[in-house]
């Protein structure tokens, strides 16, 4: 049998395979080259970039919880100007691994301005971070409001020619409403889930463990939430979904694909197994070969009878 097809097109972005390093766990890509070959993975999402440089949150930022990682970094980053000057040019000759820039604005104008500045050939797509839970004490995010979500997307679509991926938060009452609003506003794809708002208390000091009190939970602990939300959104919208939340094994990839994800992001696992993205891309290909699946895309939505996205028919 021929090698299975692993490539995928999301909006106009062609990925060599559906494995993408998730924002905040992959640095700006180059840091990971010690551990893997970037040209073996579909792409990665940059650390969340803001209009101005940000120092992030004070105090302790990381805590391990059962099968999970609680973090409250607070979007520490160099800001859009420095990012464009120093990071983007390094991707000029990297054709296979797509640079998806994760942008995080405080308001519609900042999103719009950053999108304009990122009309650069090295940038494959934008991922709008409407869902960082660590920017406010109460963890309220833009992605909790369908109207704000729409406004940001409409503004960005007006000025950007890039595929627009909207990253959604699980910290909402009904993800379907937000996802539908994103699709209607013109989003090209949706990525979900961002981290789940959580906290931990140090019982010895009787104080919250994290300096910011609350943080975002990631890792295997949140996988069932991510799979459920991808499933729900796959029943709601037709645009491609990039599934993430606790992916660390081939089985996790398959679950997300079968729930209705077209591509996958790997997050926390990069921190403890920094070659994981390359491994998963290979394992997914090997799985398809072994099972006689000619195109991994046949797996998309396979478990979901109400899947509304594009169905790839074929022998499997």
């Amino acid at each position, binding site marked *: 049998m021929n090698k299975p097809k692993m490539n995928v097109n999301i909006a106009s972005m062609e990925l060599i395979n559906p494995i993408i390093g998730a924002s905040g766990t992959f640095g700006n890509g180059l840091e990971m080259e010690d551990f893997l070959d970037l040209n073996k993975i579909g792409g990665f999402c940059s650390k969340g970039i803001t209009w101005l440089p940000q120092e992030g949150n004070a105090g302790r930022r*990381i805590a391990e919880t059962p099968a999970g990682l609680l973090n409250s970094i607070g979007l520490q980053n160099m800001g859009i100007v420095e990012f464009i000057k120093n990071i983007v040019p390094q991707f000029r000759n990297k054709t296979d691994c797509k640079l998806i820039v994760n942008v995080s604005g405080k308001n519609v104008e900042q999103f719009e301005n950053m999108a304009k500045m990122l009309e650069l050939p090295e940038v494959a797509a934008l991922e709008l971070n409407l869902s960082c839970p660590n920017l406010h004490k109460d963890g309220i995010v833009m992605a909790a409001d369908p109207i704000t979500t729409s406004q940001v997307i409409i503004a960005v679509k007006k000025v950007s020619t890039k595929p627009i991926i909207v990253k959604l938060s699980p910290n909402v009452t009904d993800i379907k409403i937000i996802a539908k609003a994103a699709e209607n506003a013109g989003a090209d794809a949706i990525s979900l889930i961002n981290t789940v708002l959580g906290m931990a208390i140090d019982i010895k000091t009787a104080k919250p463990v994290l300096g910011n009190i609350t943080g975002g939970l990631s890792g295997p602990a949140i996988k069932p939430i991510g799979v459920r939300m991808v499933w729900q959104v796959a029943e709601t919208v037709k645009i491609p979904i990039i599934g993430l939340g606790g992916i660390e094994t081939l089985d996790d990839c398959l679950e997300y694909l079968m729930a209705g994800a077209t591509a996958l992001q790997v997050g926390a696992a990069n921190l403890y197994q920094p070659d994981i993205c390359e491994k998963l891309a290979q394992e997914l290909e090997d799985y398809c070969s072994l099972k006689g699946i000619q195109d991994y895309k046949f797996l998309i939505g396979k478990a979901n009878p109400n899947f509304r996205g594009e169905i790839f028919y074929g022998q499997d």
Partner: protein
Amino acid sequence: MNEKIIESCQIISNEEIFPNYFKLKLEATKISKLAIPGQFVEIKCSLEREHIIRRPFGFHSIEKNANLISIIYEVRGSETLALSKRLSGEELSLIGPLGNGFPIQGKVPLLVAGGTGIAPLSCLATAFAEKKVDPYFFYGCNDHKAANYFAKKPPEGELNIATMDGSFCFHGNVVELLNSYLPTSKVKFDVVYTCGPQLMMQKTYEWAKENNLTCFASMERVMGCGFGVCLGCTLPILKDGKTSNSCVCKDGPVFNGEEIIWDE
């Protein structure tokens, strides 16, 4: 940028050297070749999926010719407990070497260690000895159990020990020991290195500053990755008159004491 890799390493030995403290010796063919004192490895301690994050440990010894490295650790939580139960012959996954090591400078170095901070400074002492420089080693620990062990297996150089409970040698902390030692000594140190509890390092730095000496401190923070992508282990660092958050894992763990905002 320093080269770093993921390596599966066989456990040569994993012994309790005094109550609750272990010395882990590993065959690390590649990492041992790349490592320098002050750098560290991230170890996947437990095999259970409940525990996902690796834990960082500074090099206690690096034997490039024998392909060996060792670390010393205290059993403090679930991961160090899991590590203490791993047996020789088993494989451990390591990422390393990580971070920047100690800049090796000076002719009369003073090394001030507290608790498990003796591990990376022993490694540094060995590096000095290889350059025919004898360091002065001051070590503070809780009691005679630790003191006894290191008195029998001393690092390179002259070793002075303080115990908090007074059960071995000097009674008090290591900075008090320094202050009592110096007036009677003719030694003129030209550089200071410190590793241990933060308050101890702060006191050491303040002492060094009073004496116009450069002091390098190996800082500790809870880490997510160990190689600078999660930005979880930051501390405010003063450079060129500006304060910014730097990663202990990537920009450290060794910092010039001048750059550290001690009363953060």
